[in-house]
């Protein structure tokens, strides 16, 4: 009878006793949750690295003095520079190239360097923005998926109830508990995704502002040099 079911309401028996659509919903939610946490950790690491890189480069840029030396140090390095360093590299390379052509106007040289930096900046920003749309959709959609599983499970629970003359709570309770597991997992997937999305979005915004102000300042320095 239903009472024996109520007795062993472990989470495993609840999931095992759920109907197939509910189990599918649970599987989908667990997979999305795993992926969103994976992306969250990747994003945490990459954004943190971008911030420390920007910090280190700004320090080197404002204290170093000689831009040529800085540029050579960057290009001599084995792997490609990232973040602010790559913007500097692109701008300086373009500037040096135009500088070699004697008959170019100063404004044209500046414009070329600026365009090169703008392109690199966009590429960097795209890199930083990666996976954020996924997190956003997990955060907004997975509660609905969980809700769908719950509604389905509760529908089943009440349909089973219709065959019984004397309805008791113990006859629906296991079915509803089963169904609510879907909502719980949906929320578990959604909440971290939303929190992480907001945090990452603001971090990316701050980084992009930082890159942009660096670009302006570097343009000024180049203009003074030419």
């Amino acid at each position: 009878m239903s009472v024996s079911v109520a007795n062993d309401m472990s989470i495993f028996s609840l999931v095992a006793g759920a109907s197939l659509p509910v189990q599918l919903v649970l599987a989908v939610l667990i997979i999305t949750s795993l992926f969103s946490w994976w992306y969250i950790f990747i994003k945490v690491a990459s954004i943190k690295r971008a911030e420390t890189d920007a910090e280190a480069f700004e320090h080197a840029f404002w204290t170093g003095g000689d831009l040529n030396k800085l540029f050579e140090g960057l290009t001599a390095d084995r792997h490609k520079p990232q973040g602010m360093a790559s913007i500097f590299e692109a701008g300086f390379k373009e500037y040096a190239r135009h500088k070699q052509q004697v008959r170019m106007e100063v404004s044209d040289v500046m414009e070329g360097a600026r365009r090169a930096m703008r392109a690199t900046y966009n590429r960097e920003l795209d890199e930083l923005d990666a996976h954020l749309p996924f997190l956003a959709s997990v955060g907004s959609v997975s509660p609905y998926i969980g809700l769908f599983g719950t509604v389905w499970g509760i529908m089943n629970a009440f349909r089973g109830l219709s065959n019984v003359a004397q309805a008791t709570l113990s006859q629906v309770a296991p079915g509803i508990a089963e169904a609510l597991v879907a909502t719980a997992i949906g929320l578990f997937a959604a909440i971290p995704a939303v929190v992480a999305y907001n945090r990452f979005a603001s971090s990316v915004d701050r980084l992009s502002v930082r890159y942009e102000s660096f670009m302006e300042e570097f343009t000024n320095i180049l203009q003074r040099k030419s």
Partner: protein
Amino acid sequence: MLRQRENKDSFKAGVLSVAVHAVLLIALLISFNWKTTHPVSIAEVELWDSIPNNLAPKPLPPPEPVVKEAPTPEPKPVVEEKPKEDAKVDIALEKKQKELELKKLEQKKAEEDLKKEREKKEQALVQKKQLAVLQEEVNKDKPLKDKKETQKSNDALKKLAQEMLDEDKAQGNQQAIGAKAAANAGVVGEYQNKIRTKIRGNVNKTLCGDGNPELKFDIDLLPTGQLNGNPKLIKSSGNSACDGAVERAIMASEPLPLPSDAALKSQFRNLKLTFRPNDGN
């Protein structure tokens, strides 16, 4: 899916994400007491859980619906299918023997027609009989139905009846524990006598005449001693007034005396009561 510069983090991040889910699962298992249940309803039901074990040994002969339904469905298929089969067989034979024995075939056909006619007559007879039986049953049921409507049926009774039904279904799995039942037989007899005495007090004996008629009733009882549904007459005394009187007496005797032991109560759930209204003891 992954950017090139994220590759070095991907493995670590994957491990961390799996770890987060493992932690959540463990937290769910530990922090929630999944075994928590409502004590009230459990107590109520546990009392019932013990019943089927003791109920099983008492061999309950299949209840009356089997008797009622048996005559109606059985003869029909036999009667209807037989002529068809014969016809098929005969057709097969016909095809084989057509070339050789045309005359015999004609004879057979004639015989067949005769057979069919006979069978049709038989069928008609059987159907007439069935109709008669059905009408009798309908007539018998009518007074019972009227009483059913007037009988009070509150929620508690319904609930108990539901649980009894459920347990009757589950009963099939449970094996007999015979010894206990034998030990209880004496007590059962005692209470059966008590029930008879109580009913006898309510019978209007003038309706049953001077003889010593014997009636058999099938009574379904709830553990409270109340009737579950109406008592069913199995063996009539031959006097419908007497039958009605006894039936009313049974209903007036609610609640019937029952042993306090739950295990013994189960023996009274489906009670076959032989009753002699004019018998002194």
